[in-house]
């Protein structure tokens, strides 16, 4: 519905976000432990696209094999986590709902670690880590939704999330400590902190597929998400089967978070910060909000990852530390605004 509302023009905002994302990606290609000159970067990408022989193999390796796959995966993870944030906030009618805050990421992490260390879900062969992460995130989401039981209290949601998160983190730690295989432990530890290091081109395919599926899913249900802004009871009176709808969203959100966590580990607060900002700029209508949130989520995580790589180069700060540094104040601001336990 194209109506002039108080927010920034939709097309203008889309263009701004696209331009900002492209700029952030270019910066991210250039900066890191090793600085790459723009002309070298352009040459490398040009020669790669034209399939010409590389003159400088180290620059080629840094750009084409390290940075670009990493940037693409970072952008996809940011977009996915932000979209899941929008979905969770709308179905729980709570501005604090987010995979990390609700413990869904911790659930996925516990599932992934149990698949690696304990060998669960091995019937799914190569996909057993994803299956483990999906089941973990699904269980965590269902627990949160059940314990929240229709209440919109922010404090209740945060407490439930804390409890679920602590529970799954404890399980993860316990599984890691129970393992005597050092390689397994090192591999499992990765899921508890989150990292975009050592990304291969092949790592992008699955998150890309999930992102496209999630984006289409969000656009298809945009009307229903809008309706939930009137409250669950009103949405039901208007003809929406709220329970069934929530279940569909929970499954989709859990699967999406699971893929991200299985690939890059737990990265907190992205799904909180980005939707919170975009709702204010873009408005509450989901057909527009979804597009802008995906773009802004990708932008945010690409920028954050660039900071994580360059701030103390050649040392790399875990990306979750940077997102938490930005996310925790936003989290506190939202709690203050929501008037301690009352509605948003």
């Amino acid at each position: 519905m194209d109506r002039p509302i108080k927010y920034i023009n939709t097309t203008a905002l889309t263009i701004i976000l696209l331009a900002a994302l492209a700029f952030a990606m270019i910066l991210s290609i250039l900066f890191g432990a090793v600085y790459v000159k723009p002309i070298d970067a352009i040459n490398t990408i040009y020669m790669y696209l034209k399939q010409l022989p590389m003159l400088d193999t180290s620059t080629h390796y840094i750009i084409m094999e390290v940075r670009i796959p990493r940037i693409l995966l970072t952008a996809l993870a940011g977009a996915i986590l932000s979209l899941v944030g929008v979905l969770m906030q709308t179905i729980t009618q709570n501005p604090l709902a987010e995979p990390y805050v609700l413990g869904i990421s911790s659930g996925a992490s516990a599932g992934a670690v149990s698949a690696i260390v304990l060998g669960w879900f091995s019937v799914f062969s190569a996909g057993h880590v994803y299956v483990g992460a999906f089941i973990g995130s699904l269980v965590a989401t269902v627990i949160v939704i059940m314990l929240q039981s229709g209440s919109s209290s922010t404090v209740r949601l945060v407490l439930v999330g804390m409890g679920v998160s602590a529970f799954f983190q404890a399980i993860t730690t316990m599984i890691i400590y129970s393992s005597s295989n050092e390689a397994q432990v090192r591999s499992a530890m990765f899921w508890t902190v989150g990292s975009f290091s050592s990304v291969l081109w092949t790592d992008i395919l699955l998150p890309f597929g999930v992102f496209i599926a999630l984006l289409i899913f969000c656009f298809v249900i945009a009307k229903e998400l809008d309706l939930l802004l009137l409250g669950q009871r009103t949405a039901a009176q208007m003809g929406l089967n709220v329970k069934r709808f929530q279940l569909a969203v929970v499954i989709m959100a859990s699967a999406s978070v699971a893929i991200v966590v299985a690939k890059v580990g737990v990265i907190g607060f992205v799904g909180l910060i980005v939707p919170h900002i975009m709702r204010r700029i873009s408005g509450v209508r989901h057909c527009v909000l979804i597009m802008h949130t995906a773009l802004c989520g990708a932008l945010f995580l690409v920028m954050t990852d660039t900071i994580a790589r360059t701030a103390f180069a050649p040392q790399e700060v875990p990306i979750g530390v940077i997102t938490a540094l930005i996310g925790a104040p936003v989290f506190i601001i939202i709690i203050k605004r929501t008037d301690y336990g009352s509605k948003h």
Partner: protein
Amino acid sequence: MEVSTKNLDFKVDNRMILESINIQCSGNKMVGILGPNGSGKTTFLRHIYYEYPTREKIFFNQADIASFTRKELAQRVAVLTQQMDMVDQHMTVAEIVSMGRYPYKGLFEQYDKLDMELVDRILEENGLSDFSNRTLETMSGGEIQRTMLAKALAQQTDLLILDEPTNHLDVKYRVELMDMLKDFPGLVMITLHDLNLAANYCDYLYVLKDGRICGEGTPQEVCTDLFLSDIFKVPFKVIHVPETVIYVQQIR
């Protein structure tokens, strides 16, 4: 639209909340549901709009409401309740009113030009055109109530259900709202605490007490000193001014 119930019962923990409720109403009428607190008015209405599902107890034009899908039901009955606290305050009036068209849309359908023309017309008719881009957080209780009513009107149903819509409204907004409801092109079922509004706006009244219908009729028939005093356990004096108003006064 004809709404009828057949021996509607409802109990919670062995306590009867509604008992053998039988009503039948139709046409472009405003039907008031009166009764003291806890008499079952809201529970009764919740059954009518299927928040509490029943089978072969409630009928719209002789069809069991259990036979309708949720959207089919929402195409027949619009509801206005007091639960405004759950509504996102950042939504604009136009956005809210347009959602009244949701029951008519399939999964992949979006609101089209015809929907938007209807929304614009409803905004105009309800004096909300100037507010259309304002968010709820900037509006008064009366304006929000009008917005929610406009959303219900955009549903284009034959039945409109309102649960104590005049609570928290000042006299001006109460009268304004009741005047708007009087113009609704269908059946209106409304619970009211204000007996004067009920007496002067409703065409027919049902009086509930302890989950049972203990009186029904036109306001002239129902609003008598003795009956109201008996129902509400407070002495009332009712003054009938022929062809104008009924004035219900509580006596101290």
